[in-house]
C-alpha cells in the first residue's frame, strides 16, 4: 500500500496532542443530524455481546459497539475478521446466536422496514432487464411509500448526487464496475435514510472510481446521516472516517480516531539530516555515517537506526529523551518526530498473522 501522502500523513509530533475520548458518551447527538421523530435514540447502532457462529467457526465473538448518530465510522479489519457477518446482523439479514443489536432504537428488521436504513452489500451485481433509472426509481418509491412524511430528493436529484445521470437509460447489468457501484450507492441513499451501511464499497474499483464514490459518500455524510463502512483499505479508514473500529477475529481490538489508534502502537520515529559531507569524498561520507550510526544507537530511547543518504531515522520508545539528547549534541537539522503509521498500528494490533 502506498505511504501516506504529504499532508494526510501522521502528525509530526505527539507533544501537545489533545486526547479525545474514543467513545463519545451516549447522548452526544450532534446538532441537526436529521433525527426523525418516533425514535428517542442516544445511539444510531448498538451491538451488545453479539456472537455468531457458522458451524465451528466463531465469526463474531462478543461484539460490543455503540455508534453515535451523524458520524462516519469505519469498520477496519483483515479478511475473515467478521466485518461482513457483523454487518449482516446489523441489517437484520441473519440473527445473532447471542446478544442483541439495536438500530435507531429498534430491531434491525424493523429499522429496515421503516425505511431508516440504506445498504450497499458487499457482493451482488445489478439485475438484468431494467434501466438504471427504472431500478433506482423503484428503490426510491419503496422508501417513499415507507416514509410518506419525509420529503425525499427527486429521482433526478438522486441520480445527480450519485453521478449517474448520464447512465439513466443504460441497462443496469451492462455497466462497468465503478458505474455499477455508483448505482448501488444511489440505491442505498435513495430513501435518504438516517443510516447507510456500506460493506467494502470500493473493493475492486480503480482509483478514479474510488475517489468519485468517496466524494458522493462524504457529501451524504455531511447531510448529517450516520455512515458505517467496512474496508480493508487503511487509507480509506484514515481519510474518510471520524472513528475507526478495528475488528479482528470477531472482536473489537481498537477503537478511536485514526490518531488514537496510531498512538496505541508504542514507538516514534525521529529523523534529522546529518551534517553534509562533500559529495566527491564518498569514502569519508560512508565512514562518518557509519560511525554516526553506532553513536546514534546509544542515544536514550533509541531501539534501532537507519541512515538513507544523509537522512537518519531513529526508532525510539521515548522520543522526548531522544530529541533532548540530540539537541544537546546540536544535531537537529530538519528534525521531525512522527508516530507510527496506521498500517503499522493495524499490523501490530492484529498481530500481523502471528500469535494466533
Amino acid at each position: 500500500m502506498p505511504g501516506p501522502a504529504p499532508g494526510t500523513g501522521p502528525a509530526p509530533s505527539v507533544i501537545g496532542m489533545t486526547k479525545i475520548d474514543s467513545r463519545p458518551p451516549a447522548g452526544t447527538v450532534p446538532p441537526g443530524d436529521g433525527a426523525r421523530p418516533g425514535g428517542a435514540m442516544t445511539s444510531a447502532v448498538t451491538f451488545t455481546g453479539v456472537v455468531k457462529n457458522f458451524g465451528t467457526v466463531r465469526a463474531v465473538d462478543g461484539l460490543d459497539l455503540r455508534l453515535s448518530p451523524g458520524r462516519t465510522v469505519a469498520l477496519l479489519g483483515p479478511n475473515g475478521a467478521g466485518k461482513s457477518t457483523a454487518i449482516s446482523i446489523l441489517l437484520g439479514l441473519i440473527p445473532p446466536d447471542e446478544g442483541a443489536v439495536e438500530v435507531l432504537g429498534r430491531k434491525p428488521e424493523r429499522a429496515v422496514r421503516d425505511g431508516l436504513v440504506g445498504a450497499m452489500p458487499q457482493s451482488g451485481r445489478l439485475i438484468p432487464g431494467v434501466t438504471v433509472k427504472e431500478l433506482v426509481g423503484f428503490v426510491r418509491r419503496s422508501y417513499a411509500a415507507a416514509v410518506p412524511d419525509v420529503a425525499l430528493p427527486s429521482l433526478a436529484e438522486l441520480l445527480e448526487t450519485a453521478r449517474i445521470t448520464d447512465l439513466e437509460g443504460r441497462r443496469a447489468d451492462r455497466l462497468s464496475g465503478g458505474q455499477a457501484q455508483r448505482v448501488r450507492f444511489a440505491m442505498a441513499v435513495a430513501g435518504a435514510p438516517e443510516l447507510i451501511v456500506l460493506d467494502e464499497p470500493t473493493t475492486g474499483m480503480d482509483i478514479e472510481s474510488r475517489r468519485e464514490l468517496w466524494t458522493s459518500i462524504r457529501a451524504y455524510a455531511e447531510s448529517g446521516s450516520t455512515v458505517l463502512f467496512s474496508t480493508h483499505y487503511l487509507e480509506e479508514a484514515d481519510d474518510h472516517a471520524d472513528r475507526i473500529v478495528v475488528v479482528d477475529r470477531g472482536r473489537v481490538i481498537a477503537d478511536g480516531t485514526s490518531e488514537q489508534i496510531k498512538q496505541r502502537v508504542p514507538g516514534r520515529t525521529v529523523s534529522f539530516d546529518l551534517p553534509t559531507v562533500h559529495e566527491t569524498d564518498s569514502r569519508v561520507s560512508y565512514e562518518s555515517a557509519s560511525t554516526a550510526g553506532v553513536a546514534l544507537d546509544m542515544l536514550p530511547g533509541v531501539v534501532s537506526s537507519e541512515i538513507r543518504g544523509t537522512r537518519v531515522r531513529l526508532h525510539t520508545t521515548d522520543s522526548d529523551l531522544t530529541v533532548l539528547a540530540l539537541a544537546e549534541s546540536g544535531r537537529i537539522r530538519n528534525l521531525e518526530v512522527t508516530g507510527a503509521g496506521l498500517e503499522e498500528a493495524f499490523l501490530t494490533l492484529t498481530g500481523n498473522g502471528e500469535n494466533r
Partner: protein
Amino acid sequence: MTLAYMRLEMVRLLRDPGYLVMSLISPLLMYLVFTNLDLGGQGDGKAALYSMVGMAGFGAVGAVMGNGVSIAEDKPLGWIRQLRLLPLGPVQVVAGRALCAMAVTLPPILSVCLSGAVVNGVSLGIGQWAAVIGLLWLGIAPMAALGIGLGYLLTAQQAQMAGLVCYMGLSLLGGLWFPISEFPGWLAHIAQATPINRYGELSWRAGDGHGPTLLGTVVLAAWAAAFVAFAAYGFRCSTRTAV
C-alpha cells in the same frame, strides 16, 4: 408497493428473450402447426378448440415457469437480499412476484385464443370466450405458486431443469398437446391426477358449455394448497441462505 414491484419484475420478464420464445412463439407456432396438420385426429372445430386451450395453457405454463427461473437467477446476483434491505415486507415481495407471474400469462393466453378465433375459426359465444379465457388465466395460479417455490428453493440451473420438466413434461402428460383419451388407460389415469390436466379440463369443458367437475376442482384445489405451502417453504429457505 406490491404493484410497483410487480411492474418492475414484469418489465424484466417481458424483455427476456427466453420468455418470448417459451411463452409466445412456441405455443403460437405449435398451435398453428398442430391444428393445420390435424395431429389431434379429431374433427376440425373441436380440434381447433381443444388445441387452442391446450397451447394457450402451454404458453401460460411456460410463462409461470419462466417467472420461477428468473427468481432463481436473481439469487446469485444478490437481488433477493437487496429486496430484503428495502422497506418492503416479505408478503409484498412474494405477492408482487405472484402477480407478475399471473400478468405474464396473459400475452400467451390472449394471443393463442386470438389466433384460434381469427385463423382457425373457433367460434364461441361471448360468455364462453370469457369463461375459457378467464379459467385459463385463473387456473394457472397453482402452477404459478409451484414456479415461485422452485425459484426460491433451487439454484438457477436446477430451476431451469425443473422448469423445463414442468413446461414440456407436465404439459404433455396433462394433455395440453394431445388429448389424454389417446393415452393408454394407465397413463390416462395418472394424467388425470396432474394439476395441468385439471387446469386444461376447466377450459375445455367451458368451451363445450359445461361447468367444472367437482372432482377436477378438488384435485386442482389440493394441488394449489400444496404448491402454495411449497412456495412459502421455498421463500423461507431463501431468506435463510440469501445472505
